[in-house]
């Protein structure tokens, strides 16, 4: 059972710099040439920023959906501040039993505070038994 009290809670703010070397490795892993552009899914490499009290199961977690919104393109050299927020936690009865949906939104801003991106992920946890 995932604690619904976590709805609305935020993580600490994390800071990252978009390094050319990391973008190049990411592009090569996808199978595209690196030409200085940042692939649209690169944001997924921004780790950390755990929401306190959100205990996600380690096993059986499914990625149900992902949405990215860019207010401007991300460029190599950008310094971005980001944090996660739990937007919603809800249950649905499915073919495979009870499922809990956890919707988290990550928001990224420039050093001057301008909104650069949001990334919304929906994770699905299946309840055992």
């Amino acid at each position, binding site marked *: 059972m995932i604690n619904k009290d976590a709805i609305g809670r935020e993580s600490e703010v994390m800071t990252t710099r978009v390094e050319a070397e*990391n973008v190049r*490795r*990411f592009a*090569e*892993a*996808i*199978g*595209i040439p690196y030409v200085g*552009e940042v*692939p*649209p*899914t690169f944001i*997924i*490499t921004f*780790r950390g920023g755990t929401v306190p009290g959100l205990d996600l199961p380690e*096993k*059986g977690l*499914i*990625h*149900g*959906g*992902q*949405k*990215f*919104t*860019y*207010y401007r*393109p991300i460029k190599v050299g950008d310094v971005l501040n980001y944090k996660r927020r739990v937007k919603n936690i809800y249950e649905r009865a499915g073919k495979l039993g009870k499922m809990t949906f956890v919707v988290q939104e990550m928001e990224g801003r420039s050093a001057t505070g301008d909104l650069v991106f949001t990334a919304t992920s929906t994770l699905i946890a299946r309840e055992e038994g």
Partner: protein
Amino acid sequence: MEKFAVLQAGASIPERVWIPTDMQLRQYAEASGDYNPIHLDEKFAQQVGLGGVIAHGMLTMAQVGAMLTQWLNGEGSISQFEVRFQNMVRPGDTIHCTGVIKEKLANAVVCDVKALNQKSMEIIAGSAVITFKD
């Protein structure tokens, strides 16, 4: 790609074909930081009932993203990109990424995108909004 002026609703985006390998899943795990053993450890993936390793959903989404950026070739920028993950991808599958322009706006196009496997099962489906400068 064609200039924005000639893009029309109904036009298709050039397809991208992708055949994932175990080595690519390892490479993507290292590049993305997602080391979940369901993508890397055959025995573990069997034990948790997946019948073998599966590709990262985000790696499949990245293939659809690659289809878009290779088509755009720097002409426009992706301002929104959204997918639902519907079926699993395994090493050796043949994945076809496709897209079609759904709607043309003043300075943007809205595209429907999807990825299908060799059995024509829908792996992911979603949409993208691409914005062009004046």
